[in-house]
């Protein structure tokens, strides 16, 4: 936490070397988040790359405030959402989900066998619910911050989170077959 404050301080004082440190510190978490959002590791890495390219280009134009981890997670989520929308338009698939196996045969296995069921279940959630769940449970963002990021009410965010958890429980307990 302390280190983040220093990284932000250095970043805000024009040290683009701080970018390297920020990248090294958060790259794995961000790739994981993007992969879980998009169910596709290659696209996830493109997202993280795009986020940092944007970061580099704008490093002189803005100052970071608040949580660095939250900020980066938001950037990844925004980029992943755009990519997901573009992918849906391109593939003309259903608007609510990216199904494992449709375009990434091994997508469900990307987190290893132990978490295979979880990744399969996550892939069956509507994208918006998956995003809320991952931003809150994986990235530790507060519902209020997620609501601002998604430009919806906090009640909507909490609702999506609840639905996501219920559905995951159902899938993992085998009560609902996909």
């Amino acid at each position: 936490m302390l280190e983040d404050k220093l990284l932000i301080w250095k970043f805000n004082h024009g040290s683009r070397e701080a970018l390297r440190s920020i990248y090294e510190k958060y790259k794995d978490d961000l790739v994981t988040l993007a992969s879980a959002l998009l169910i596709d590791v290659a696209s996830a890495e493109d997202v993280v790359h795009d986020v940092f390219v944007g970061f580099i280009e704008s490093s002189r134009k803005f100052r970071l405030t608040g949580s660095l981890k939250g900020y980066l997670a938001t950037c990844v989520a925004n980029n992943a959402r755009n990519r997901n929308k573009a992918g849906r338009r391109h593939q003309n698939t259903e608007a609510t989900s990216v199904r494992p196996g449709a375009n990434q045969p091994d997508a469900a296995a990307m987190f290893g066998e132990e978490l295979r069921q979880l990744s399969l279940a996550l892939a069956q959630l509507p994208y918006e619910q998956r995003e809320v769940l991952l931003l809150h449970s994986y990235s530790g963002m507060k519902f209020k911050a997620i609501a601002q990021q998604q430009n919806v009410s906090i009640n909507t965010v909490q609702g999506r989170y609840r639905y996501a958890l219920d559905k995951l429980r159902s899938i993992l307990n085998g009560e609902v077959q996909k």
Partner: protein
Amino acid sequence: MRPADNINDLIKKLKLKASTGLDRRVHEDISKALAESDKTESAFTQQNIGSTVMKNPITKLAAAAVIIIAVLIGIHQFGSSVPAFAEVVQPLLTARTAVYKLTVQSAGEPTETSDWMYKMESGTREVRPGGVIRILHNDQVIMLWPAGKKGLILKRTNIQEDEQSQTNWFHEIRERIRQALETKEESVKFLGKQEIDGVIAFVYRIGENSEMTDMTVWADTETLLPIQIQQSMGSAGTVMNIEGTITYRDIIVNVELDESLFVVPEGYDTQTIEIDSSMATEEDLIQTLHLWADNTDGEFPSELNMKAAGELFQLIREKMGLKGLKFEEGQIPEFAEPQFSEFFPIRQRIIRGLGFISRIRRSSDSDWHYVGEDKKLGEAEKRICWYRPEGSETYRVIYGDLSVKNVSLEDLSK
């Protein structure tokens, strides 16, 4: 089916690693951005921005908080135009890989420069002046003779935990820098600017007044990247007994290093020797004294340190018929020669005894004394060395016949 009650715990377990391809893309983009930036604009000349922002009272409070944080964790700031030491060393502390030249200068020895590579998860690789390659992993040391396609693997067994620094100098300097950043008592002194190989550099020194070795860091005034680090080896009177400097130059961090650089290449004829790396004991010291005396007509050495051990190794090599063979300088070894595989275990056993001395001397109460000069193996009444084990009221005294007795301070001084 997995119970679903712990969904949040499961989600937190999700873990992927960024690929080296992504690392390369992002670091290249950052490097490109740095290279394209206006060279005259140092990151720390943006004082105008800072002044403007500081007019806002809320920002003033925030800045004050940051300064307090910086002071608490030992960030050293030297004035408006000088970058903080933490800023300069940050790329070193976070580097996944690095390449550098390392020059060792020690009193009475020829200066030696070799090329090094460091990869966080793979170890270090040194290309020595004669072309011999030495790869250091925590669990083994690999020596390669590319000209003869031969490899020697010194496999370390019974390794103690947290021993990485013993085989990885880059890790060691990082730890030293971290200590300097995190310890309030450490002093980081800004020495001004200096030109090195045509580059103007900021110069910092750490540990000048501490008991640790001191270190000097030069950072390019334009890129703020460390370009040279020099560490002193002022350990006269200790087991290492080496005085001199280790200098890291031409440091480049986060370059792509293939994993194949850290293993034995295909087609090499290799020999594996196991080396015991467990914690050295008093028995190891006794064995060292025995080996030493056996090879010097029963006489104990005048000093018991690495420098004296180096001379003993030469003597043993000569006795084994290995004299004049300069393996580390590039001469290709002949593994079929039995002496070759016999020499390394003997060398290691002697080093273990010195390791024991080094370990007990870390305690300020050990009161280690070596008085073996002019004494011979078998002289049961003569003391060779003594020390006080941690927490003990009596001393352990080793005699010329290599027997050991517990002796009180009163009896010791008789």
